[in-house]
């Protein structure tokens, strides 16, 4: 059976398209994870981002994927989710 259309089981008070969570306006006291996907010179770019975030009062924690060719390992994603309020990930060059 095709499962391309589902019927909403709920109150239909929420939008049918899910909205991304709102970004916090204030970074002070929050932990921001920076995920380096292991592209060349990504670290240089992220160093700059880190110093800008720290100037805003955020605590920056750095993470690095073993290789940009594969999705982040589950353990790395769990580490980020456990330790960070927000995460920034560069997706390309």
């Amino acid at each position, binding site marked *: *059976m*095709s*499962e*391309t*259309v*589902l*019927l*909403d*089981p*709920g*109150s*239909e*008070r929420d939008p*049918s398209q*899910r909205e991304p969570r709102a970004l916090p306006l204030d970074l002070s006291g929050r932990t921001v994870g920076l995920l380096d996907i292991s592209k060349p010179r990504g670290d240089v770019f992220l160093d700059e981002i880190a110093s800008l975030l720290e100037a805003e009062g955020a605590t920056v924690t750095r993470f690095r994927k073993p290789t940009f060719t594969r999705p982040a390992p589950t353990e790395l994603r769990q580490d980020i989710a456990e330790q960070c309020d927000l995460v920034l990930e560069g997706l390309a060059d």
Partner: protein
Amino acid sequence: MAEESRYILVTKRDCPTCQLIEPALEELAHSAPVRVFNQDGAGFPATAAADVIDDSELAGSWALDVEIVPTLIRYEGEIEAGRTEGWDRAAWRALTHLNDLGASLPEFRPGCGSLTRDPGIAPRLAARYGGGGLTARRIDLAPLEDAIETCYERGWSDGLPVVPPTPERVLAMLAGTNRDPGETLGEVPPDLVPVSIEKIAINAVMAGCRPEYLPVVISAVEAALEEPFCMHGLLATTYFSGPMVVVSGPLARRIGMNAGGNALGQGNRANATIGRALQLVIRNVGGGRPGGVDRAALGNPGKYTFCFAEDDDPAWTSLSEDRGFARDQTTVTLFAADGVQGIVDQKAREPEPLCRSFAAGLRVVSHPKMVQAADAFLVVSPEHARVFHDAGWSKQRVTERLHELLTIDGSELVQGAGGMAEGLPEKLKGRSLRKFREGGLTLVRAGGSAGMFSAIIAGWGASGEIGSSPVTREVKP
């Protein structure tokens, strides 16, 4: 007159009668316009005189609401003027006014079933071509989206996988009731959202119900929405409780519910999914979720699903009867329940010592020093029930004896007694108090044939007018 009429004939090649009537079709098509919808592919019937359409997708057959092939329909303009099913020479001649039609054919041959009536087909066609009366919002999935994962991500699941509620499945579910999908039953707490039969069917699909369970689920939702059940408070409480569903009466057996071995446990589809469907309605329609309005400190596993059937025990009145219905009526009774506490007595062979064991177990409901607070259900197993049956004790006599044995001196219950701070105000020291309020102790029969164990199911600490009372509704188709 035949000259002014046009005809539609619905056929399938895999029907001997449809093959038999080809000469009659040929004759008819030479006298009036005929369009043929053939259900199983192109190339049949082999006539150049009629406009033959391949109706393999069954769109035409569905729109014409055909039950049998062949079906011949006559139109006057756009109006259907009559139809006949199968091959009945007299009926075809009467419908077409062609008095020599099918002279070479036998007088009568029954037709075959239309493919639109094959098992499971109708809900798919209704979903595709309309006619099911569905109004719930449709959620389109992206090509690589997994429907079960989507249900999780949208917050529709209780934590276990749900069956994705496709329109086809929901229409198949709705076949389980005679009620209009658009009928609303009331407002579901905590968000007080009107709930329709359609929304219940969607959640029943997700819970894994079969269509024949739907009337029970609907009655359970109706009972939950009755004011005395206090569903809002039951959801919001920090206490353990959630709705327990007991089904009493003949329909419980007919839909395959378990009242025997492991009745309170896992493994029976009807027990498992009916209770779960009610919880999903509260969650999805009402918006009642743990961490939201559901503030349970610990909860209990029955909040996934807690539903069982009462065993039919001719020696005792049934729960339906105890609640004011007839024995042959099927009812659902909802109870604001915590978990199951076992009570063991393998030695008693007389009612009195067994009642004393039961009473000792029931004494600890909520707290050994709390009275007139929580209600309780006592699920009496066959081996324990036998002790009462052998001595001729009715359910009412057992219940009354338990109330007597659970009449407690206030000095045991006041704050500080037994070294426990919990308890009643000091002023009640001289009183005798019943553990359970009037109507607060309910006995039902269930369980497997071996094991001298019964089950105490304690209720929410807020019972009766200040909280929840058991509510019973008859199940109707």
